[in-house]
């Protein structure tokens, strides 16, 4: 295993070390050469680093240079210092550093008798272009999404956030794959305590593999029993920029097209870019509808079960007669019926999502037909139950950021309401409420600006006020003060 052992001064020994490390890898490439009078060798991984770039950057320069230093150490110092070539500023002096640089796609020039290697940024990794966002539907605003390449994602942010205070620090996670991640923030807006705490916590995380920024989320949670996320996610650089303007921190992980925003608040999951492009009245109405949709998604089926099983007096008589007729025709009690339908809907959704695209639609169609038509015709489920379950499923999609929570909460509420009636529904509602209230991402109110009610609640909470008010006050983390609370 490589360690911080210094690089050997002799070129042969350095090459032997590399041969031992990567010799069996087909994509590992070394090329011995002579630069002036100094024996040297180029090392890189083909596919993620380009020998052509190295040729253009270095060999052309060396060929045209009038006189090259005669020994390896002097040549290394010249390349690192006075030579007109864009080499990395720090020399590679340790074995683990050498391995890391190669893994990052750099070309490394080993020089005999030097004990130092010179790294060049000649990365040329396979990558896709900047795509359009698929998971966050917005009609207005920039239509570009993050991609899998960390540097490209940082560039996408910097292109939109053109201030000198934007800081993007890159670290290597303690994983088997040594994955890179970036912590991006505006140093003029983001509270220093949050940034420091976040960097410290991230540095302390030890996981075998890091494939997405969401892997960090669990480590950042204060209460592991709390199901609400401590962070928000976005695939849109524009949304990430908006969060940076609020003083929040964006975490990008190499290989993941999703940015994590911390701290994440409950109300953020109900906000979209379109909210701020549309008129304030319409945006406010849509936002209220989303809160209603979330409530319907979580409590709708449970409320139905409770009303039918325990408290029929809350249902108007005409509707009650129809419900009773429908329920009499089915063999299962309402709670089991609702659970079965909800479970089947989730299975259909999961199958449609995971199945190959070519048969995904077929799965959905067959599932919908079986559940919707056949089950009703056979008298296995009643139409009201199916209607309520379908309405809740559709309502879930109105707030996709809280999809997981909606599903889990819905099942819990159905079970509690079905088992205990009104107190069970109260129990479920209070657990959800207490989870939301008890979450304190980095010491901030998770429910800000919704609770406690204040001016901010109506400025950019349940509804959005006009831009003149938004612009005058702004929403910056760390400035949530008593003034906001009214």
């Amino acid at each position: 295993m490589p360690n911080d052992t210094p690089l050997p001064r002799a070129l042969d020994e350095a090459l032997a070390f590399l041969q031992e490390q990567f010799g069996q890898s087909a994509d590992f490439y070394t090329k011995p050469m002579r630069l002036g009078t100094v024996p040297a060798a180029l090392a890189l991984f083909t596919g993620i680093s380009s020998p052509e770039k190295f040729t253009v950057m270095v060999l052309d320069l060396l060929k045209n240079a009038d006189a090259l230093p005669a020994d390896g150490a002097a040549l290394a110092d010249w390349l690192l210092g006075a030579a007109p070539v864009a080499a990395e500023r720090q020399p590679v002096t340790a074995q683990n550093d050498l391995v890391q640089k190669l893994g990052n796609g750099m070309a490394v020039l080993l020089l005999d008798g030097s004990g130092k290697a010179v790294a060049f940024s000649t990365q040329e990794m396979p990558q896709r272009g900047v795509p359009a966002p698929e998971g966050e539907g917005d009609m207005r605003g920039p239509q570009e999404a993050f991609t899998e390449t960390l540097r490209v994602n940082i560039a996408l942010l910097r292109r939109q956030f053109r201030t000198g205070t934007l800081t993007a620090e890159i670290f290597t996670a303690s994983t088997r794959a040594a994955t890179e991640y970036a912590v991006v923030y505006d140093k003029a807006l983001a509270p220093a305590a949050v940034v420091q705490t976040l960097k410290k916590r991230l540095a302390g995380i030890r996981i075998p593999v890091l494939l997405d920024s969401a892997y960090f989320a669990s480590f950042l949670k204060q209460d592991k029993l709390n199901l609400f996320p401590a962070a928000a996610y976005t695939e849109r650089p524009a949304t990430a920029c908006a969060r940076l303007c609020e003083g929040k921190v964006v975490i990008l992980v190499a290989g993941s097209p999703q940015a994590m925003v911390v701290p994440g608040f409950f109300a953020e999951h109900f906000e979209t870019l379109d909210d701020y492009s549309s008129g304030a009245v319409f945006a406010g109405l849509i936002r209220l509808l989303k809160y209603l949709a979330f409530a319907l998604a979580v409590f709708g089926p449970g409320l139905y079960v409770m009303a039918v099983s325990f408290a029929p007096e809350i249902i108007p008589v005409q509707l009650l007669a129809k419900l009773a007729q429908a329920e009499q025709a089915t063999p299962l009690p309402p709670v089991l019926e609702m659970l079965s339908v909800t479970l089947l809907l989730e299975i259909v959704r999961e199958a449609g999502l995971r199945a190959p695209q070519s048969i995904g639609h077929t799965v959905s169609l067959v599932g919908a037909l079986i559940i919707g038509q056949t089950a009703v015709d056979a008298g296995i489920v009643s139409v009201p139950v199916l209607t309520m379950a379908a309405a809740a499923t559709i309502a879930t999609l109105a707030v996709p950021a809280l999809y997981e929570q909606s599903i889990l909460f819905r099942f819990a509420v159905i079970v509690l309401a079905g088992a205990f009636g009104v107190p069970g529904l109260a129990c479920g509602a209070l657990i959800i409420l207490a989870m939301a209230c008890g979450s304190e991402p980095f010491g901030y109110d998770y429910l800000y600006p919704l609770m406690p009610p204040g001016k901010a609640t109506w400025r950019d909470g349940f509804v959005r006020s006009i831009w003149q008010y938004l612009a005058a006050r702004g929403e910056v983390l760390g400035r949530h003060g008593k003034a906001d609370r009214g």
Partner: protein
Amino acid sequence: MEKPTGGEFTLFAALLAGALLNTLLARQTGYGARAGLLMAPLSVAVLAAAGWMFAAAWQRGQNALYRALFTALLALSSVLELLRLWQLAAALYPGTVTLTAVCVTVLLPVIYLRRISAISQTANVLLCLLLGATAVMLASIAGRLQVTNLQAAPLHPADCARALWAQGVLWPELLLPALWPQQAGRGRCVPLRLAGYTVAFGAGAHLVLELFFGAAMPGRQNPLHTAAQSGALSIFNRLEWMQLLLWTMLVSLKLAVYLYAMVGLCGGKSRGEDTAVGLDRYPLYFAAMLLACVLLRGADTTRLLLWRNAAAWVLAGLVGIGGGLKWLLGAKAA
């Protein structure tokens, strides 16, 4: 930098919600509206003075005995709240709500109400909901509130004494601010504000009930629910389920505050956090509450409430005397 961190959360809303719940869960009205309104200032003064004296004396003279007594008082109060809610639920939904179900549904959310932030913010939300539910209920029965229902018979000293007796219940919420002088509430006069809001809410509820029931008010069981059952504002014919839903949540919140206080009184603390109760004792707490409820399920809760009130006054008196003596002896030594 101003930021709403856990240290800035206040428990005042939670204490207030718990205090208001005492009126909501009352099985019968305690006094006539006019006598209640007349005696309210005196009741507020007495309760506020008791709360303030207890807080001052607790800071000076608390000891292991007082802490044990206070813990026992809170434990008894928790059991009583569970029993009161169960009796109410059983009256509304006969045969469907068991005591175990009430214990489970009330105590389960307490797991998530271990942090000050959770308790405080949840209390804010529940108070808002309570305000909304009260407004809905009032609107739904507005047509049946008749001024002519107000009793016009001359007031006797016995009526005033009854009102004073009913309003002068020393709820544990009035004593709890002594445990958290920093967190109980921003600003001063926490006992005064608590007593004021509680007595005013009770007197207001009695006024509405008298406008609704008239001379029949004193004999009504679960009067607030009976009033709600006649509401017909929306497509829903009855609103009692909504009230029971909200009141169940309020009981959970109240018990969470009591648990938070009991753990503090017993010297327990969560690992690494001073604003949260650890989960390690929760199973013991749950089992103890369930067992106590089962044992006391047949007891007369009205009588138990009287005993609890007497115990609260005795504890306040003991702590007050102890604190006063310490103050006197301390002043003398100085």
